Each structure stands twice: as C-alpha cells, then as structure tokens.
C-alpha cells in the first residue's frame, strides 16, 4: 500500500533512464540514489521485469529521463504574447517546428530573453519577444513499452524529461563549486560536462551562461584498465568535435571555458594532456561530483559511469524543468493524479470524521462522568433540603405566614397616623385660648394592597382643623395677633413631628378685602360681649415621619 502514499510524504522515487539500447532503473530515497538494473529492449518479458522491479523498489513515483541519441532542440524567438494567447501560440509553434514528433515541450530561456530584449532596445526592426528552447523526441515503440510497464504499477508519474536539459543546472552547480574550491569566481561563460553512461555513450552537455547550448551523446570505447589511453584518446576526439561546434554557437576563447570530466581518474587524467584548447580542466570522480551537488551514491557504485549522478540529481527535483507532454503519459498520469487527489481528499475526510468522532466521544464521556457527579450532588442537596424541611416542620414554623404577616403589619403601621400625637402637641400650645372643636382626617392609598408593577402607593393626606372662638368684646386686631402667636408656637412644636400650622380663618379680615359690620353705643357694647368671633387653624402633615 506504500505506493498509494503520495511522494510528498515518502520521497522514494524511481528514475527510468531511457538509453538507446535499453532502460536503466534507479531508485532514489532518503539514503541516496542507487542503480537497480538495466533492461535491454529486446529482453524477453521487458515490461513485466521492469514493472516488477519498480514495484519491489517501494517507490511512490517515477521520473522518465531520456538519455537517447534522438533528441531534437531548437531555439526560437517568440514575439511578446498576452498571457491568454501564449500557450496556444507556443503549442502551434512547437507543432510547426517539430511536426513529426508527438512529444514536445518548450521553455523560456531567461538569459536569452534578457539578451534579446536588450538587443532590441535600440533596434526598432527587431521583434521584441522571448527566446524559447523547443525540444522534441519521437514517440517510439520502446517508449510505449515503458508506459505499459508503468501502467502495471501504482506509481505517480512525475514527468518525462530530457537528461541534458534537466542536468543543466547541475553542470552550473558543479562549475560554481569547483570555482569555489579553486578560490576563483567561476567567470567562464561556457562549461562542458563530459561523462560516460552505462549504455556506452559519452554524454557531453555544453552550458552557456547557465543555459543549455549544446549536447551530444556519442559512442566511445569501453574503458579498459589495460589501456586507459584508448578511452582518453577517443574522448578527446569527441571533445575536439564538440569544440569545433562551439565556434558556430558564438564561442571564442576569451569567453572562458570550463571542462569537467566525471569518471575514473585512471581514464580521465590522461585526457588533460590531450586537450589543447584553453580551458579550466577539472577531473572529478563520481563520488566527488555527487558530493558537490548533494547526491548520495552508494559506496559500491562503479566510479566511472556517471548516469547515476544525473539520475540522482533529477530524482531530487519536485518538478522537471522541461516536461515533455504526450497522450501516452497523460492517459496514465491524469487518472493517477485524480486518484491521488481523491485519496488525499478522502484521507482528509476520514481524518476529519475521526477527529470529530474522537472529540464528540470525549465530550460524551466527560458529560457522562459529569452527570454522575451532578447526580451525586443532587442526592446530597436533596438530603440537606429534606433535613431542612423536617427541621422546620418539627418547629411548626410557617415561613410564608410569618414573613407575610410581619410585612403586611409593617406596611400598615408605616402608613397609619396616630392622631393623638398631633393633638397632644396642639393641646400643649393652646394656653388660655378656647378650642371649640377639631377635625382630624387621614386618607390615602390602601397600604395592605399589593401594588401592580409600576404603581406607587398614593401619599396620605393628614390634617387637623382647629376651630377656635374669642369673646365678642375682644378687639379683632388683638384676637388676630393671638391667633398668629398661637400658630408660631404650634409650628415651633409641630416641626419636629412633621406638621405645619397655618391660619385658614382669622377673627376678622381687617384689610381692604374684609367685610365689617360694627355697632357702637352702650347697648351695642353689651350685645357684642355675648357674641363670639370664630377662627380656624389648619395643621397639615408635611413629613412622612410625622
């Protein structure tokens, strides 16, 4: 089931290196890259053997890397295009450029593009645009057989790439590393990586300004320890041929040239003496080169063949630089990508459901435990409640009755007014004034009634009317003065109990409003002595605490 796990989580990956006479299988894992086996095209049961080897490798994805002779490249200028038209036009240009090849791809060359733009700045005739590298390979029967093998195993297809294109950054990295070791800046614009692969071909990758300029794969003699010079001579001839090509690509000795040969020093060191072109010549063993670019190769790996170096470099990539598109690849890759997506979604769903289930189960468990605790608490409090009830029952206390009765009694008492309080105060201040009568009234709202929400008990209106009389012989002015003095005395005493007195009727109104009927003479004086003058004082309650 490990094949179903996305390569993101398990970095084990197969690299299928397509060579002219067969295919090499490499497996890249955390421990490094290892060569598994090579399978010849004419080998019986090719697909089954390859599929079986891939399945047994434990890898989750596969990269197909073309290292065959037949690879076609072309640099093309493409006018500046809008984002929406670019893909269609590039595809059309690819079709026109490589009409006979079904597997094609294009990538923009940044350095070339920049140069193209810079050169066109002062030249209105030049078409402004980008410089593209177009590549194509034929869809052969052998490729179909590889796809058939891949279809038998559950591996995600990372892509189908071209070894020289994918290894170009590695050449650049090697050049920089070597320059760093030498203490220089690595200023050469041209670099050539020479390495021999298991198929017997000598791969030369020429890089100019970090971009692929030229690549060649040519047959050379197999390295022979008895005559290492033979291999070196053969390679030097191929290198000379390559250098002769370079001049066509604009190479001049002033540009600087780095030549890196990866292989067994037995064969590579004699080569230096056979190179006459000015260059920085570097010989690296496979292990040195691998360590420079961060690829782990097994200790038992043959030190001369360096196809494992390229495979290890490409296996580490998350995506290929120039993936070739084809129906054969898509027919397998797309369903697997969709399946991977579905599996990821399903896994997330299952994980989510499991998370929710665990969360809910934990909550349910906690709630169940809490219910037990709460029920125990309820039992205890019920017992306490029952004990309290029993205690009160034993005492014969009716709580609502006691509270209600006391409250009602207080409500009534707080409103009721004792008339004797004010009458006693009045009596103390009368002195020799004659009181004929009085009327005490105290009316207001019902204090024992429960008020509705928002209602307020109406204030009690309490007052005492004092009826006084004076002898008819007294002068009204003097009588009025006596009344006024009484009111002053009353107010001094009544103030502390919350009452206030005022004259509501004087003996006689002596102002211009008053009506006067006066008899004079001897008989008249006798009669007036029997008459009486009436006066009235009203004492009102002005404070509730009275």
């Amino acid at each position: 089931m490990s094949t179903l796990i996305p390569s993101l989580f398990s970095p084990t990956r197969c690299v299928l290196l397509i060579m002219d006479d067969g295919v090499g299988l490499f497996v890249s894992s955390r421990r490094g890259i290892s060569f598994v086996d090579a399978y010849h095209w004419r080998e019986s049961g090719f697909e089954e053997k390859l599929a079986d080897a891939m399945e047994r490798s434990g890898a989750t994805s596969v990269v197909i890397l073309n290292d065959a002779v037949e690879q076609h490249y072309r640099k093309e200028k493409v006018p500046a295009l809008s984002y929406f038209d670019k893909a269609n036009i590039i595809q059309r240009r690819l079709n026109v450029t490589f009409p006979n090849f079904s597997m094609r791809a294009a990538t923009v060359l940044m350095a070339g593009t920049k140069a193209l733009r810079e050169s066109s700045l002062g030249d209105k005739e030049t078409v402004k645009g980008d410089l593209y590298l177009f590549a194509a390979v034929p869809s052969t029967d052998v490729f179909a057989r590889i796809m058939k093998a891949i279809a038998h195993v559950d591996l995600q297809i990372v892509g189908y790439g071209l070894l020289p294109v994918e290894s170009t950054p590695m050449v650049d990295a090697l050049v920089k590393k070597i320059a760093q070791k030498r203490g220089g800046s690595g200023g050469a614009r041209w670099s050539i990586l020479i390495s021999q692969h298991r198929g017997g071909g000598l791969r030369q990758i020429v890089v100019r300004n970090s971009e692929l300029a030229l690549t060649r794969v040519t047959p050379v003699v197999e390295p022979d320890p008895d005559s290492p010079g033979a291999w070196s001579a053969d390679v030097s001839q191929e290198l000379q041929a390559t250098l002769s090509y370079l001049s066509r690509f604009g190479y001049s000795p002033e540009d600087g040239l780095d030549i890196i040969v990866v292989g067994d020093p037995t064969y590579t060191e004699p080569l230096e003496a056979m190179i006459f072109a000015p260059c920085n010549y570097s010989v690296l063993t496979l292990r040195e080169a691998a360590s420079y670019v961060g690829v782990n190769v097994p200790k038992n790996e043959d030190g001369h063949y360096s196809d494992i170096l390229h495979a290890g470099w490409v296996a580490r990539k998350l995506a290929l630089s120039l993936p070739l598109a084809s129906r054969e690849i898509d027919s397998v890759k797309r369903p697997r990508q969709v399946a991977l997506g579905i599996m990821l979604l399903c896994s997330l769903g299952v994980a989510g459901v499991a998370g929710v289930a665990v969360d809910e189960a934990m909550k349910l468990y906690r709630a169940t435990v809490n219910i037990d605790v709460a029920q125990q608490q309820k039992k205890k409090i019920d017992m306490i409640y029952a004990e309290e009830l029993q205690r009160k029952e034993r005492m014969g206390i009716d709580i609502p009755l006691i509270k209600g009765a006391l409250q009602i009694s207080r409500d009534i008492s707080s409103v009721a007014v004792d008339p004797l309080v004010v009458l006693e105060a009045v009596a103390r201040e009368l002195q020799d004034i004659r009181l004929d009568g009085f009327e005490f009234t105290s009316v207001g709202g019902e204090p024992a009634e429960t008020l509705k929400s928002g209602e307020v008990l109406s204030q009690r209106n309490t007052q005492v009317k004092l009826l006084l009389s004076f002898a008819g012989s007294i002068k009204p002015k003097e009588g009025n003065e006596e009344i006024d003095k009484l009111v002053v005395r009353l107010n001094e005493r009544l103030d502390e109990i919350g009452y206030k007195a005022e004259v509501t009727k004087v003996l006689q109104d002596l102002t211009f409003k008053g009506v006067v009927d006066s008899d004079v003479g001897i008989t008249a004086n006798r009669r007036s002595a029997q008459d009486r003058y009436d006066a009235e004082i009203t004492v009102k309650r002005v404070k509730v605490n009275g």
Partner: protein
Amino acid sequence: MVRGLSNKVVLFILFLLLIGGGGGYLVYEYLIPERERTDRELAAIKAEVDARYLEVAKMKEEFILLQSQLREFKNLEARGFFNDQNRSEAIDNFSKLSSRVGLLKANLNYASGNIIANQQAEDAKQMVIKSHGKVEIESLDDVDVYTLLKFMQERYPGSIDITNVKLERVETLNAAMLRQIGSGKPVPLVKGSFEFDWRTMTSRDAVAPESGGN
C-alpha cells in the same frame, strides 16, 4: 477497472469513501445526537442542583432570620392580628374598652368588610380583611375620647388605622350644668365621632364578614 489505475487503488479509494461515509453517518446520526442529549441531561441536572442549592441557602437564611422575627410574630399574634373580624367579638371587645373609659355613650358601626388583594397573604394561604368602622361618642370630658382612641389603637385586635376624628364642645361647664350633673342627669359636654379602618389577617377558609353594629 479504471484505465491507468490498478484495482488496488480503486478499492482503496472505495474503502476510504466507505470508511469516511460510514464514519460520518455514525458520528452525525448517533454520536452527536447522543452527546447533545447527554449535554441537555447534564444541564438539566445542574440546573436542578443549583436551584436546590439556592432553595436550601434561602431556607437557612430564612431560618436564621425567622429566629429573630419569631418573637415579633408572636406579639402580632397576641395582639389579635389573626382575626376573622367576627362582628360579635368585635362589639364585645369595643364594649369592654369603652366601659373602661366611662363614656356617656358610644355607638359603633361597621360597614361590610372587604378582602384586600395581597400576594404575600395569598402565599401564606391567608387573606387581609379590612372593615371600615365609625364610633359616635358623647362624653363629659374630651380626655375620655382620647383615652378610647388610645385603647382602640393599642388593645383592639388587629390593626386600627384612624382616618377621621371629629370633636366639638357642645356645652360649657358652669354652675347650672354642675347642678344638673350633680342631680344624676349626665349632660354631655363633648360630642364627636371617629372613623377607622380595621385590618386583620385570617385564613382563606374564614367566613366573609357581614355588616352590623349596635
């Protein structure tokens, strides 16, 4: 089964779908409702416990409070606050008080009583009764009237709320009046009246008071 995919992959996807779907169904159909039901049950029990705690706390508080209120309640009870305002007893009580004062004449009249709406009384399965009373008085001295008023407020069963007092001097004490009194014919020097509201509490089962007087 599907082009480009092995049966193993397809079966694994189906397995994941089955696990996810089945698990989801179980979670949302059984686990979550069960958890919600348990939460509701827990909340209900907690609410019951909290309510019972409050009740017990209230009872304890009331109990402490009642210890101090009990004496006050007993006094209230002794003063006859719990009274069904039976008119016969009311007249007897008034008669006893007025006879101690020594009035020339006192006439008591009660109007029909009313039940006052009071929630606290209802909670205690009681009711508050109010009767309006009026006393007509004839006396030799106004002090007797005041004494009766004091007795009514302090000794009459229940709560007496004086709402009106009228008093007037009808005669002046002179030699002729003294001779008349001395001859055994009492002459009222003061006449008056007072009105009051009589409030008591009684059980709901008590008979409604009726109008009456002497």
